[in-house]
């Protein structure tokens, strides 16, 4: 109970991944979808860092991967926000139900 193991971190990251994934599916505002993507990315980072801390402390590859994931997801959020701003300038709406041009 009082010993925090790798299993605790994995369960926590699993729960957060599921919450973020459900948020991506059910949110209709695109900004909220982006926030949920960031939660998913943070859960993945937590997984990597927990594995590194408990398993592979010699090479720290999980922490380096987490750094890369942080940088790339921050960049993709910036691009997403720019795209949202451009869509809003042209269409004046940013809910995924109202933007229908990207339907496949």
């Amino acid at each position, binding site marked *: *109970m*009082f*010993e*925090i*193991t*790798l*299993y*605790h*971190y*994995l369960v*926590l990251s*699993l*729960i*957060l991944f*599921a*919450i973020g*994934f*459900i*948020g991506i*599916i*059910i949110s*209709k*505002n695109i*900004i*909220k979808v982006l*926030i*949920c993507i*960031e*939660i998913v990315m*943070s859960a993945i*980072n*937590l997984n990597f*860092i927990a594995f*590194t*801390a*408990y*398993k592979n*402390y010699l*090479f*720290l590859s999980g*922490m*380096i991967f987490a*750094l*890369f994931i*942080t*940088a790339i997801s*921050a*960049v993709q959020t*910036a*691009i997403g*926000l*720019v*795209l949202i*701003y*451009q869509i*809003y300038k*042209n269409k004046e709406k*940013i*809910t995924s*139900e109202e933007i229908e041009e990207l339907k496949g």
Partner: protein
Amino acid sequence: MEQLNAIIFYIISAIIIFSSIAVIFTKKIMKSVFFALVTFICFGLLFFFLNALFNGVIQISIYGIALCILFAIAVMLTNNNEEETHKIKFSPTIILAFLGVIMILSSILIFLKETMMYDSVFKTYINSSHILTSLDNTKQLSSELLTHNLYSFELLGLYLLIVLIGILVLLTFKGESK
């Protein structure tokens, strides 16, 4: 000491889970940005807890501060602070999807726990945790980043430059005339 660590871990985990659920289900977007800020800062605290000092600082400064400011500016620019119009109806599809996700995740966990992977993955390395202190960790992380992972680090820098140019191009894009 171990009990205190466990209590802190459980408190932080509860805050993260509560605030990440609140991100989804609050109606005002600005409030969900605030809850996202709380979530990302608690993630950083968990990273500190795992002796990943550098990752924790990066998490708090990039996700917790920079990205949340970006989200808030985007909300203000798009004038989108009104309540979200959709109502989440708990239709059978959503409930089934939620149950499906929970069942898949729990079955993966049970599988891991019941098979040999549990012993090899979870139990073997627990005693080897927390060998280094946080400062040693930061030093080692920087040396690993600039020696064994130098090419990927440089590639990441190139990627960031390309994205910067792309964002500038997107911002100068005029779009179709109204």
